[in-house]
Each structure stands twice: as C-alpha cells, then as structure tokens.
C-alpha cells in the first residue's frame, strides 16, 4: 500500500494497462500535456502512435473511437470536461450505444471515455455539468464514477480490459486527494457497490463526487447519535441494486446524494428502484439530495447554494430518522 493521489491512481492504471496490452491507444485534445494529469507521461512512454493530441472536433473523436474499436483497437478517448461530451454526443448516443445491437452483436466496443465532471470551482455552467443521467439512459454504455484513488485504479483496470463502451468519469477537482492504493495488480468489478460504513438507522447512497460529503455527513450524524450506513455506488451502469436494497432492508431509510441535476437524475432512478423493489422495507420516504434543475452559476456563493454537501445530506438523513422518532 502507498498513498497516491486520485489522478495518479488513474495515471498508474493507464500506464500499467497500456504496458500490458499493446492494442490500447489513447487520444484526445492535449492528452500529451494533460491538463488534469491523468494522461501525463504516457506520450513519452508509449509514443506518438498510441498517444495522440487531436484537433478540437468532439463529434469526430467519438465517431473515430467507434471506428478504431470496430477495427481492433482498444480505445481510450479523453473528452476533458464532461460538457464536451454533448459536443460529441451524436456518435455516443446513436453509434457507440447502439451499433453492437444494430449489427446483431457482430462488433465489440472496447472504448473507455474519460472526462472530468462536477462543479465547485467557479468554472461556470459550461464546465461544471454532471452528465451521467443522459448517459445512463442510453442503455448501451457503462458509467463508472470512482470516488477514491484505490477504486479509480481498480475500476479503470477492469474497464480497460473489458469490451464495452464505458464512461469513466473523474471527480472534477479531486485529483490531488490522497489515499492508500494497493501495490499489486488488482481490479475491481463493475456493478459492485462499496459499503464504506455500516449503520442501522439510515442508508446514504453517494455517487462519485458526493462520497466525500457522504463520509462527512455520516460522521456528523454519528455525532448526533444517528448511525448511518454509507454506500459508494462506484458504477452507475451496471448498478448494484442488491447492496442498496439489502441496506435499506436493514435501515428502512434512504438518502441518495448525487451531483446531477435533480430531474431524471441517478438519484431519481435509485429512489425509484428502491421504492419499487424495496417498498416493503421503507419506513420513510426515499430522499434525493441533488442539484436543483438549474445551470451551474459562476459566483462561489451561488454555486455553493445549489451544490449538495455534507450538511444537506446529514440534514436529509436526520429528518428521516427524526420523523420516525417523532411519529
């Protein structure tokens, strides 16, 4: 074990997997210099064939990823900020997510799309989106949202070895956060949530950027005598329903913390699934702590006002538990 930065863990996974598998190539805008640091050093190590800066042309980049994958390569496409996913959305929604079905399963698409998401740094509306709800609704792409360095590395290795298009979304601005990462060559399967804290009173399901706030919320709640169970979903597609449902069976209460806008958010979907399959175990209304249905404002105070945080999560959880106490 060694302490690693989140972004370093991602970089390590890319280094190790590209060394393992010569078919992996990576391209995107300024991936050689690497603004986020995730692709730093790759060009020097793997050369100009495998690592390429591209022109700014997202619509073509996503289509090229499809074409190169259909021709035998394992493609890593870096889209920089999540909002640029929209610029390249046609080939994602109409090709990447559908072509395997449309061709009767003839093709495989080992494509990993990297992008940073989320707000909190006054980057304003066009650089702060949390875009996974639209991706989750496509049906044909996986969505992975690692919250810790160790998960980032293990999940990315799994993704790089699999044959399905997967959005590996990096928690924006969290690159420097540090935690222990195992030294050995490990992978973490998709579709397995992590129970970060066991608890009896309420289940907090946290997604990506929200995990950190979930941890703080659970600590805050513990201080008030509320014993929260904290689940990090790790991947949204595939999604680990079982772990969430088992937890709600135990606690009877659910709060989902999600940095997506509320309407049709991942939180909505998780609440809907729990309300459906876990109805009998719910003692209170399942709650969403999300971003309201607005574009991200620039001013720090306005941005803070719309972003979920530990306090909002803790308050939602406490309200559920206290409602019971009071009723």
């Amino acid at each position, binding site marked *: 074990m060694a302490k690693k930065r989140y972004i370093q863990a991602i970089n390590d996974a890319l280094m190790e997997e590209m060394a393992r598998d010569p078919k992996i190539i990576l391209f995107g805008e300024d991936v050689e210099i690497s603004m986020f640091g995730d692709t730093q050093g790759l060009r020097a190590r793997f050369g100009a*064939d495998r690592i390429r800066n591209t*022109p700014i042309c997202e619509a073509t980049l996503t289509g090229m990823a499809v*074409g*190169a994958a*259909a021709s035998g*390569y394992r*493609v890593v496409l870096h889209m920089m900020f999540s909002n640029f996913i929209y610029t390249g959305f046609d080939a994602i929604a109409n090709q990447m997510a559908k072509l395997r079905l449309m*061709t009767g399963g*003839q093709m495989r698409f080992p494509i990993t799309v990297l992008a940073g998401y989320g707000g909190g740094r006054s980057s304003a509306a066009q650089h702060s989106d949390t875009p996974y709800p639209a991706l989750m609704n496509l049906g044909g792409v996986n969505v992975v949202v690692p919250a810790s360095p160790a998960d980032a590395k293990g999940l990315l290795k799994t993704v790089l070895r699999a044959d399905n298009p997967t959005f590996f979304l990096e928690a924006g601005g969290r690159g420097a956060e540090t935690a222990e990462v195992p030294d050995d060559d490990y992978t973490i399967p998709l579709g397995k949530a992590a129970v970060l804290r066991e608890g009896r009173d309420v289940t907090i399901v946290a997604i990506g950027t929200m995990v950190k706030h979930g941890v703080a919320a659970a600590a805050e709640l513990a201080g008030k005598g509320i014993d929260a169970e904290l689940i990090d979903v790790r991947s949204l597609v595939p999604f680990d329903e079982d772990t969430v449902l088992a937890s709600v069976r135990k606690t009877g209460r659910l709060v989902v913390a999600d940095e997506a806008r509320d309407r049709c958010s991942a939180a909505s979907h998780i609440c809907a699934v729990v309300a459906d399959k876990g109805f009998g175990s719910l003692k209170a209304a399942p709650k969403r702590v999300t971003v309201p249905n607005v574009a991200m404002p620039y001013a720090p105070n306005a941005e803070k006002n719309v972003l979920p945080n530990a306090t909002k999560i803790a308050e939602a959880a406490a309200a559920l538990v206290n409602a019971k106490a009071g009723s």
Partner: protein
Amino acid sequence: MNSTNLDPTKDTLVPLLRRMLLIRRVEERLSADFHAGKLPGGVHLYIGQEAVAAGVCAHLRDSDTITSTHRGHGHFLAKGGSPRAMMAEIWGKQEGICRGMGGSMHVADVSKGILGANGIVAAGLAIATGSAFAAKLDKGDRVAVCFFGDGASNQGTFMECLNVSTLWQLPTIFVCENNNFSEFSPTATVTAGAIIDRARAFKIPCTAVDGNDVLAVWRAAGAAVEHARKGGGPSFIEAHTYRLHGHLEAEKSFLKSPYREDREIEEWRQRDPLRRFKDYLTGERICDGGEIDALEAEIAEIVEDAARFAEAGEPADPNLVFDIMFHEQRA
C-alpha cells in the same frame, strides 16, 4: 466511356457488371416486396447509383473497411456481403446478417469489412476515419472507404474528418455520391459552392467523376486506393450520379406534390449506369448478348433464392436484445 492509362481486362469488367446487376436486381425485388407490404420497415434504394459502389469496391479486399449510409444495400453487396443474409435482415429474420436487429438502414458484415449502413447522415465519416487510423497503426496496407451523400457533405464532420485524415495521413478514401438530392431538397438549394472544393482545401488528391460510368469510377478509385495503400494518405472522389427511385420507397404515400420532374428522371434513365455499361461491353465486343443474358439469369436465380431464403426465415429472437447489447454483460 473515358479512356485512361488504366486498362481493365475482361476479368475485371465482367465482375463489375455482375456486381451492378446483383445490386439492381436485389433492389428491384426489395422494391416489389416493399410495395407488396412484405417488409416491416422502410427502404432507401440505390437504383441508379450502382456504378459507384461497384467501381470502388472492386479495388477492395475483405480486410479493407467501408462505411455506408441509409442507402447502403449497394455498398453491402458490392463489398461482398451475402444477398441472402441482407434480404433476411430486411425481412427482420433471425438469419439476417444482423439477426434482424438492424434492418435495411444498418446492414453490416464485419467479416467482410462492412462496418455498416447507418441511419445517421454523415456518421460513417468519423467511423471510417477511426478505422483508417487503426489501419495506419497496423502498419499494413489496409484502407478505409467512406461512402456518403451530397447532403452528408454539409455535416461538419466531413471537414473534421478531412482534417484528421490529412493531418495524420490516414488511408481514408472519401467517396461522395452526389445524386443531386438531399432527401427532397435539390443539392444546390442546400449546398453552397462545390463540394469538391471543400476537400481541395486540404490539398489532398481530389477527383470528380461521372458516377454513372463505372469505368471512370473504377479508375478514380483505383488511383485513390493505391495512393492510400502506399501510405500517401487520404483522397476524395466526387461521383455525380442520380437515384432513379424515391428517397425512400414510401415517399409517394406522404408527398403532396412531386419534388422533381418526370423529365429529369427520364433523362437520367437514359444515362442508366447499367445500361451504359452493358452497351459498352457489347459495343466493344467484350461480351456478347448471350453472355449478358446468362449473367442476368444467374443473378435472377441468386435474387430469387435470397428472397425465398428471407421469406422462409425464422422471426428474429425477441430476447436477443438483452444478450447482445453488451459483450458478456446483460442489458
């Protein structure tokens, strides 16, 4: 017909005719089947444009890739796709090349390098460019051909793919089939300037050809493919042609008024690439009428067999979707 330095022998010419005939007769059958209400979805036919697919694909190997359009039957067949498997697909059958999941607009056969017809106008451009990138990385001499329409040339990815292909010297061959219409809009009403000039801006080899002259197409494509195989990078061909059928077979059902003159269609019928090529072959005494009749008969049989195969096929597996959305992962 043009004469150039490339001089095709009968061994080259007859297969060209064969491919064109196959496309024409398969599509005539599809048209009839569509109008008889036998096909579940719509079809966009390639009738009148066969010389382009045939002339280009004659230079390609199975390992070369193509991407195609919503009007993709001709490219599929010219690249060696199976008429049986294509027809069964369009009938929505399990025996279809895409197991009934894709239909007319999505026929693909990866084993033949056919990366698929595509319902999204211009989508094939970037897929072909990505495939050309793969070819370049493989360091072999594979090429990737992108067929697209004049209408598609107004999508910005056209310029983007020219840029990437030129920059990286990819073996991408851009084949624009200018058939004078983008759906129901005459090309000039939606397309400023000359399409070829957009490619010329990248200083790559650009050729305009009579797309109803299969030998002209064949020569231009031969040069482009050779250039690409030798590592010379991308090139562009604009083939002027015409679709003799509607934008889609169903169009009469919703059009309130015609969008083109019967006279225009008639004029282009005179320039029918199939008729012209037959005339050339007999006129130059490369084939006699008997040979052509024999070929027609052979093709008729293939078409009849394919249609019967399609009609007799099993309905698609309704649960297949759940198994094949992902590789080794259920939807």
